[in-house]
């Protein structure tokens, strides 16, 4: 049997096993619920127009135009009562005076005042709130999936070691086929999960009408995010498999996975804290461990020249190939040391199995 055919069998088993794994299903469902909640709850809250009590109907027109629901009341006392009871958010009484409970109702004040015209010379093409939210979301997505799926790869490797089935497996197929099948299966599952979440997000934003041109703005950044993410994920997947193979029992994972966790954690925080520093972000967008997060952010902020993502992607691809080699060697070197955890050095030096 060819390595490819063997890897395909391994891949099939891994995916079937994962789809029956309650922890995996639970995490997928939780992610879905979080996304649905974070899209639908603000939409629900914003659905009813804010009510404002008005005594003098003169200001009603301006308020109605600003989208408030007007409740006409006979006098100031009645207006104040409605405010106190919480039936309306604010009241406009003769004066004109704005009455509210414990907070200045800025929106109401704005609707009643005349503001000078503002002209922005370098306007952002999108809501400034997104400038904070989008980089955060991209970084979080990279970080969480690498960590969660990485740990699952490590766990599935160490499970085969702890149950000793690995010896039977390696006697019939090559360790490389095992590794390739496992990494491919986990990558497919990770991408499928993200695709599912993405589809739900897009559908949710469209249905609730929150979209407002958001997708058009995000499209180039997301288009680039995809290849960066895929390469970045595969690059680390083999490292995680190596980390799993170093452990002899599930309990060892805590200590053997430390390095891999740092590899994921440090770039994440670096991107998070340095994202407003243009020079630092540029550097991070080329460094292969952080480029899957930093480069899409730069593209989103329209700070990257057209050729830059290609160079960063090339660096990432070369690193991925190198790390695949390192991870595979550590994996093969430690796979059969089932008694105690293996040091990276010992795994590196171990001769691979025959033929």
């Amino acid at each position, binding site marked *: *049997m060819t390595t490819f055919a*063997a890897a395909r*069998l391994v891949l099939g*088993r891994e995916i079937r*096993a994962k789809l*029956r*794994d309650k922890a995996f299903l639970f995490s997928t469902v939780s992610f879905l619920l979080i996304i649905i909640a974070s899209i639908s709850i603000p939409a629900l809250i914003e659905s009813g127009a804010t009510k404002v009590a008005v005594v003098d109907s003169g200001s009603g027109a301006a308020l109605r135009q600003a989208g408030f629901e007007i409740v006409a009341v006979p006098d100031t006392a009645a207006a104040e009562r409605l405010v106190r009871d919480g039936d309306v958010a604010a009241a406009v009484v003769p004066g004109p005076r704005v009455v509210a409970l414990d907070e200045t109702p800025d929106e109401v004040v704005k609707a009643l005042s005349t503001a000078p015209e503002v002209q922005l010379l370098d306007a952002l093409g999108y809501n400034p709130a997104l400038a904070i939210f989008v980089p955060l979301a991209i970084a979080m997505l990279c970080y969480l999936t690498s960590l969660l799926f990485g740990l699952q790869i490590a766990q599935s490797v160490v*499970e*085969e070691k702890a*149950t*000793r*089935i*690995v*010896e*039977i*497996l*390696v*006697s*019939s*197929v*090559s360790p490389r086929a095992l590794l390739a099948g496992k990494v491919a299966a986990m990558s497919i599952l990770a991408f499928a999960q993200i695709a599912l979440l993405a589809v739900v997000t897009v559908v949710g934003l469209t249905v609730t009408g929150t979209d407002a041109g958001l997708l058009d703005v995000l499209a180039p950044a997301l288009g680039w995010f995809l290849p960066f993410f895929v390469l970045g994920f595969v690059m680390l997947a083999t490292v995680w498999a190596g980390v799993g193979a170093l452990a002899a029992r599930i309990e060892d994972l805590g200590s053997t996975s430390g390095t891999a966790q740092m590899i994921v954690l440090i770039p994440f925080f670096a991107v998070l804290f340095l994202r407003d520093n243009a020079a630092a972000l540029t550097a991070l967008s080329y460094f292969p461990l952080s480029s899957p997060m930093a480069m899409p952010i730069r593209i989103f902020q329209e700070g990257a020249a057209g050729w830059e993502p290609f160079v960063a992607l090339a660096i990432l691809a070369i690193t991925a190939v190198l790390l695949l080699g390192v991870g595979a060697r550590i994996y093969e070197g430690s796979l*059969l040391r*089932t008694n105690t955890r293996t040091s990276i050095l010992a795994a590196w030096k171990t*001769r*691979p*199995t*025959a*033929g």
Partner: protein
Amino acid sequence: MTTTVLVVGAVDRSFGDRQVLKDVSFSVAAGRLTGFVGANGAGKTTTMRIILGVLAADSGTVTWRGAPVTRQARQRFGYMPEERGLYPKMAVADQVVYLARLHGLSAADARRRTTALLDRLELGPRAGDLVEKLSLGNQQRVQIAAALVHDPELLVLDEPFSGLDPLAADSVVTVLRERAAAGAAVLFSSHQLELVERLCDDLVIIADGTIRAAGARDELRGRHTLPRYAIEVEADAGWLRDEPGVTIIDLDGARAVLELAPGTDDQQVLRAALAHGQVRSFGPVRPSLAEIFREVIK
């Protein structure tokens, strides 16, 4: 006429500074059960792992039907490691089918043979259960099914009887004999020397990483038989001390074990005994495997 199929030739292997195999050579024939005997740490498991390609030899060769063993050839090997292992959260039949397919069987063949084998091992009703739900004895049977499902030409079993109750051990013995009768070569290691003695056709004895004896069981036994005789007479056997050419090894009233000097006629001794009275039994002492084992590992 036996056909040698597997030849282990001058294999060395060290772990760090410790050399665990020194110039290990022996062969395994098709259609025969070969027992691999040695103390703990003698090198049995390491040798078996090298045959299966799980470990690499430092030097030496392993050949199958005259050619170095390739991964292709190993697809036709069945292996049961000493440390048993199965996926605990996988159904019994799925697991056996998966391992069969890793050995190159088509999906349909793998299914068909798994069903037949599980029925044969009386596991049919448990085929859909998760492995972790089975008793240890049944898990062991699944393990055997996993080694046999692709109908291997060479079976390598590391301590197949450890942890088995006598009934289960008997069923394993039956299965191994069947496979050998069907032409497979079977190599198995065991501590249970009596069982090996009863079961195997050929023997390989290893101690401290070197092969101390190898060959057909009966031939080995003949080679290690000393000119010793056991006799049981009616009265005291003490007179034997005075017989020419006889050395008493053990004397216990009417029973004795003697060693005859070269050239001494055993029938002469028997006649002398009959002259002294009634003889209940007289015959050569055949060494047990345990005795041969103790002698060759010295």
